[in-house]
């Protein structure tokens, strides 16, 4: 069970990355696109936390265990938190842009909204 379970986190990372990228590539709705991007980012969270994991280790605080007890790596967890904050900023901006795009053109379809080919262009 140990050998089988040990590759599961990496498989999850790969799956999330590929599914999220598939979502971005085939998306027909800007809100869905942002959601797919967040799935891609989720793969980085899992990767970071999985790298920091140690078998039979405690969570990284010492309120109830003596210092020196093996704990999982806290640095990668703080990296993941920073990643989440960065993600929140990017998604807030992207969603605001999506709302603006819809207000301006009435559509959320990336294919219809291509810059310089979009609904503002008249037929020549």
């Amino acid at each position, binding site marked *: 069970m140990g050998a089988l379970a040990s590759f599961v986190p990496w498989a999850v990372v790969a799956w999330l990355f590929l599914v999220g990228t598939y979502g971005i590539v085939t998306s027909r709705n800007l809100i869905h696109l942002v959601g797919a*991007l967040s799935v891609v980012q989720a793969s980085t969270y899992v990767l970071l936390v999985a790298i920091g994991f140690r078998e039979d280790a405690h969570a990284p605080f010492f309120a109830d265990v003596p210092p020196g007890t093996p704990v999982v790596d806290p640095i990668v967890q703080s990296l993941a938190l920073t990643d989440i904050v960065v993600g929140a900023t990017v998604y807030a901006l992207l969603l605001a842009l999506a709302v603006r795009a819809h207000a*301006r053109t009435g559509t959320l379809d990336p294919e219809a909204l291509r*810059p310089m080919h979009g609904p503002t262009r008249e037929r020549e």
Partner: protein
Amino acid sequence: MLPWLCIALPLLAALLIAGARGVLRRPFAELLALVTTLVVAVLAFVLAAEVEDAPLVRWAGGWSPSQGVAIGISLVVDGYGAGLVSVVAALAAATVVYALRYWDDAHGAFVVLVLLFVSGMIGFCLTGDLFDMFVFFELMSVAAYALTAHRVEEASPITGAINFAITNSVGAFVLLMGIAFVYARTGALSLAQIGDALARAPPDGLVFVGWLLVLTGFLVKASIVPFHFWLPDAHAVAPTPISVMFSGVMVELGIYAVARVHHVAFARAFGAAGARAGLLLVAIGAATAVVGAGMALVQRHLKRLLAFSTVSHSGILLAGVGLLHAEALAGVAVYLAAHAAVKGCLFMAVGAIHQELGSVDELRLRGRGRDRPGLAVLVAVAALALAGCPPFGTALGKALIDEHATLAGASWLAWVFALASALTGAAMLRAVARIFLGRGPARDELESSGATEEEPPEEPRGPTTLLLMLAPAVVLLASSLAVGLVPAVTRWARAGAHRFVDGEGFAAAVLDAKPWPVLPPSSPHTWSAKSLVVSGATAAAAALLAALSLQGERGRARGVARAAGRVGAALNRLHSGQVGDYVVWLLVGIALYGGALALVSR
């Protein structure tokens, strides 16, 4: 204190202006932004002078390394870092002057975003920690997305910004995965410590994959083929002062990051394989240079044309970095500074063309500029500088890289650079001839497949005077000339380059506070007859290509023009404007370069 000030001052100014929005009158806010950027540029010069013998190392929160372990986040200032900060700040100051009365009052947040953008870029240049690079990368990127979409009344800037944001975010996540793999192998995030940890053993698959993913993240920012698709879209729709900063410094920061991370963190680990990894970078850079230049030639939208020329010149920079030698790196530094100035000048001039002549479509502008000789001369000289005409700094930088490439046995690289520069210069010179002299046919097979807007958005007309637009452009062009003429520049670039490639010295300075080993003083560059001839010939070739390209369908090279038109149309269709395509190309690029890396490193 000084390094922190360089990062903090723009941030504080941004917060002050944002917080006092109701109270602070707009001219005062812009003046504050201008003063801040100028002060930071001066501070960076002072810093560059201070770091002659040892880099300046500062640990955030006082977390200095203890017992050989570095947990804290470090700021490491060396000559090149400080130099790049001053280029960023100076270009930002020119941008703020250009944009001084550009907007009406509705767009008051512009300077705030520009200051945040500048702060992110400065932090990126000065940090010595790999994850901190990611954080500043994202800070500058988010500010860039918001700035691209600044004209939210129109649809195109919004979708251009979304494409930019999605592509660069995926690139950033790939970068983060690379950082995670490197951390998994070394347990360190500080570049110096990573370098030391990796140097202890020959690199295995995990280290190569980590290198590749980190590289990919930075190459997306550096708009290297096939990660470059976001750049033309972003440039075409972003406000002109923002395009100045994007093409001038933001893209180049990706190249800087590749060089920095490679030399400090990975070079010692790679050892002999490093030369082959460098060759991969050279090949990628050369391919990008040619593809970008070719695409520039088939554009009718002036800003897209300049965007593709940025792609091409970014490829030239990457190829110079890939040579992995101090002399080539000195050339890269000189070229970077000179190109930033020339590209900034060209974008400002295009903005002036848009304001005065009413369009950025080359075909629609045909002949409209006949009574503007001053503007014509400015754009023509800048286009020649772009093509690498001596004595501009672009020619000097390329000559330095070429000379080393020939020594290293890669003399074909000089031909690639000449071709790319000639093509990009030709594209701009053709535009000059068409707009200001009225030459060339009204319809052009080669160009009409290029994307353009039916009604190009009017550049916002505050009471902007032409002077405010063109004065910074002229100053930038003069700076590019100064980079090429002042001998101290090459001396400084060479000294800085020798420090830059010394990864072991960097690590010793950061972790053990050892000063750099003493180096013999660097010599200024002396132009060889061969370099002068090559540079002059490249500029002449650009003019010739422009003339040939103007003949189009009617010329003697009819068959060539038609074939080129078909290729151009196919390439233009590839740049579909759909972000899904761009992300697919990103994955294809990772697979391609990963496969190539596996091949060269066996």
